[in-house]
């Protein structure tokens, strides 16, 4: 896609912009005062966040009994939200690291926002394992550190401990990768700003960047190495999250398909979230020249591919259960499709399998309204996928005497709303204070000054 196809599919950045124009376009949005629409958006998102903070404070003070859980269904919204948010993060790493290694140059317009999304999604995800605990004030016991209790060590056999390592590694690498990519742009901001705290901050964060050959050389090397380090995380993090379920003895959880299934699902859900945010940013921040229909089209194709993998996974686990000749396993899957919580299963299937099929058509891929609706539906469907895996497997397991139902309380719903509030608030702040397009990288793919080649 780097050189030859450019003649076929047109330039990556529209408007034949010069490097100076790119800097102006991206930075002027930050230097202007926030638009009215931004204030309205942040008012809504921070209200959602406040609601979430109040409910979390309430449930920590009162007890997890404020949730709709029971003796049989020990996890529901909490771990569903956790897996959902972790999955969202994966697209950012895929775009920034994997597509970088494969020299997919279209990623340059998307990668900054996608990486920011990863970090914010991992922050949202990290909250749920903490607040779902009966005694969250003892959460530090999950970390292996020298302590005065013996010292009492953690259980390295527990998938929750593996989660702890997977997610903390993921967050650290994602943050480093994002920050290193930001350094040249921070220097650009430093040079443009005339004073104030933002200049001071940009000055500090640009680490004395001077744009020399040596600086660029070091930067490119570090960036490539970090991309190499981050790439295995695309596979490993959600694989480890899936082991929470795959290593258990519960029918519907105990299955070897879960790691690839989770990874495909994570990239699928993350891509749809990137599209949602991208389409909003494109419209509200006037970035149509940078986030072009070509970018949207490429993302849509990735959605078809990953959506296909997810569909195969759904079919495979069903067939495997039927083929297993295990009564419990067969029942777990029939119960998903036809039991009391079957509505969640069919929401999952219709949103994740049927909806993306429309993207096979070019008119659908180039109609931003259609793509936006599809991306929202996939977000919903992928949330329900995790709900289906967790709740429908738990609520009817081995002994019929234990069978129960599950319904969320207002507290659980408010906590989910609060996590969206946190995510959107962080993203809106990011849009105001950090260049949403990687200026330095986009300059490398401009059509300006190039003739027929590339």
């Amino acid at each position, binding site marked *: 896609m780097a050189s030859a196809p450019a003649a076929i599919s047109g330039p990556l950045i529209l408007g034949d912009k010069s490097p100076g124009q790119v800097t102006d376009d991206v930075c002027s949005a930050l230097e202007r005062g926030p638009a009215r629409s931004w204030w309205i958006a942040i008012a809504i998102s921070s209200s959602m966040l406040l609601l979430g903070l109040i409910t979390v404070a309430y449930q920590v003070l*009162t*007890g*997890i*009994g404020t949730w*709709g*859980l*029971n*003796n*049989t269904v*020990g*996890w529901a919204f909490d771990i569903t939200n956790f897996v959902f948010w972790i999955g969202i993060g994966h697209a950012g790493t895929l775009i920034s690291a994997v597509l970088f290694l494969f020299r997919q140059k279209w990623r340059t317009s998307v990668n900054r926002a996608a990486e920011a999304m990863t970090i914010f999604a991992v922050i949202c995800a990290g909250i749920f*394992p903490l607040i*779902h*605990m*009966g*005694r*969250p004030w*003892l*959460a530090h*016991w*999950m970390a292996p550190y020298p302590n005065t209790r013996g010292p*009492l*060590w*953690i*259980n390295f*056999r*527990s*998938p*929750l*401990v593996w989660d*702890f390592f997977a997610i903390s590694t993921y967050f650290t690498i994602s943050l480093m990768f994002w920050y290193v990519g930001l350094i040249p742009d921070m220097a650009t901001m430093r040079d443009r700003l005339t004073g104030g705290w933002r200049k001071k901050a940009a000055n500090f964060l640009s680490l004395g960047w001077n744009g020399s050959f040596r600086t660029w050389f070091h930067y490119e090397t570090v960036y490539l190495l970090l991309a190499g380090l981050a790439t295995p995380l695309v596979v490993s993090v959600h694989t480890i999250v899936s082991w*929470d379920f795959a*290593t*258990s*003895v*519960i029918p519907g959880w105990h299955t070897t398909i879960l790691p690839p299934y989770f990874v495909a699902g994570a990239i699928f859900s993350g891509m749809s979230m990137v599209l949602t945010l991208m389409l909003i940013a494109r419209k509200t921040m006037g970035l149509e020249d940078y986030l072009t229909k070509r970018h949207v089209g490429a993302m849509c194709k990735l959605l078809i591919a990953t959506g296909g993998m997810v569909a195969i996974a759904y079919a495979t686990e069903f067939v495997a259960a*039927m083929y297993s*000749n295990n*009564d419990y396993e*067969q*029942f777990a899957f*029939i*119960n998903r499709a*036809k*039991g009391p919580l079957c509505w969640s299963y069919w929401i999952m299937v219709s949103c994740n399998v049927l909806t993306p099929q429309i993207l096979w058509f070019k008119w659908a891929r180039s109609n931003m309204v259609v793509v936006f609706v599809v991306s929202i539906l996939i977000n919903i469907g992928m949330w329900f996928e995790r709900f289906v895996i967790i709740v429908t497997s*738990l609520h009817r*397991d*081995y*002994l*019929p*005497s*234990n*069978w*129960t*139902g599950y319904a969320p309380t207002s507290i659980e719903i408010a906590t989910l709303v609060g996590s969206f509030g946190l995510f959107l608030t962080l993203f809106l702040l990011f849009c105001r204070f950090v260049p949403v397009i990687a200026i330095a990288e986009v300059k490398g793919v401009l059509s300006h000054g190039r003739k027929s080649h590339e």
Partner: protein
Amino acid sequence: MGTNAAPLLTYRDGTLRLSGAAVSVTRTGRTHELACTQDYHNIEVPEALTVPGMNRRRPLIGETSLASYKKNGTLDHHGHGGHHDLGELWPEDHQYNGHHWGMAVDLTACTGCSACVVACQVENNVPVVGRDEVRRKRIMHWLRIDRYYCDNHGEVDVAHQPMMCHHCDHAPCETVCPVLATVHSEEGLNQQTYNRCVGTRYCANNCPYKVRRFNWFEYAREDTLANMMLNPDVTVRSRGVMEKCSFCVQRIEEVRVEAKREGRPIADGDVLPACQQSCPARAIVFGDMNDPESAVSKLIAGGRHYRLLEETNVRPSVGYLGLVRNRQDDEDRTHHG
């Protein structure tokens, strides 16, 4: 249910009587959600949720007829679906060289009277959580009685199955706890360490018997006179921790100290868990499975013994003695699953 019945009491002939009062029943049009501990009493899964070739009946109750049992001395209908013991991956690891505590519960003897449930609750300071929490399926009983109904050619078969922590040798709860709050003792007990538990509830999710109980709220209260009833040998659990049957570990330890003081080994029958002590039918037998002469070992060696969900290879220390039904024409009836 949950309503004061005192107005119906009458005082006649020197005694308080509940019977014989004149009452009338009218339809109110209102519904009332009963605080029921089990939603579902059928051992067969709903027909709509089956596929061809699938057993509708869950293989949880080992059963046989008297005639068949007299002839074969074994169960017709085992608890498990033809499970083969594949052996241990590391047989040298975690051997039980001293005691290996186990329990056998006789389903034929059990009448479902619930004396064991009450005894367990009193012995182990199990909180009474009230109607609302029971409606939310958060009853705290460490020992419950699963009651299953099964259609047997138009007649209803009932089976009572006392269900408590099975103290599995390959306990699925132990491997998943991130903070090692539930660990195995060298005598085969699955032990819950309350002050280490952070309350992830992963152990409860991964328990195939679902016998673990979580303190959803702070159930204990400081200001109630009922605290005088608490057993001083058992910890009162706080909010946010998991709890479950301990095989009355406090009684085991008491017996151990006493035996040591008297300079003798623990004899079979010295340790009586609260459930066994209170069972009027003597359906529950606890003892050392390493002692071939103990009552529990003899029951395990007998033909009626089976272990529940054996195919999951969790290796429970609790086993059941299957139901023997005394019915004339049962010879060809018992195979309904």
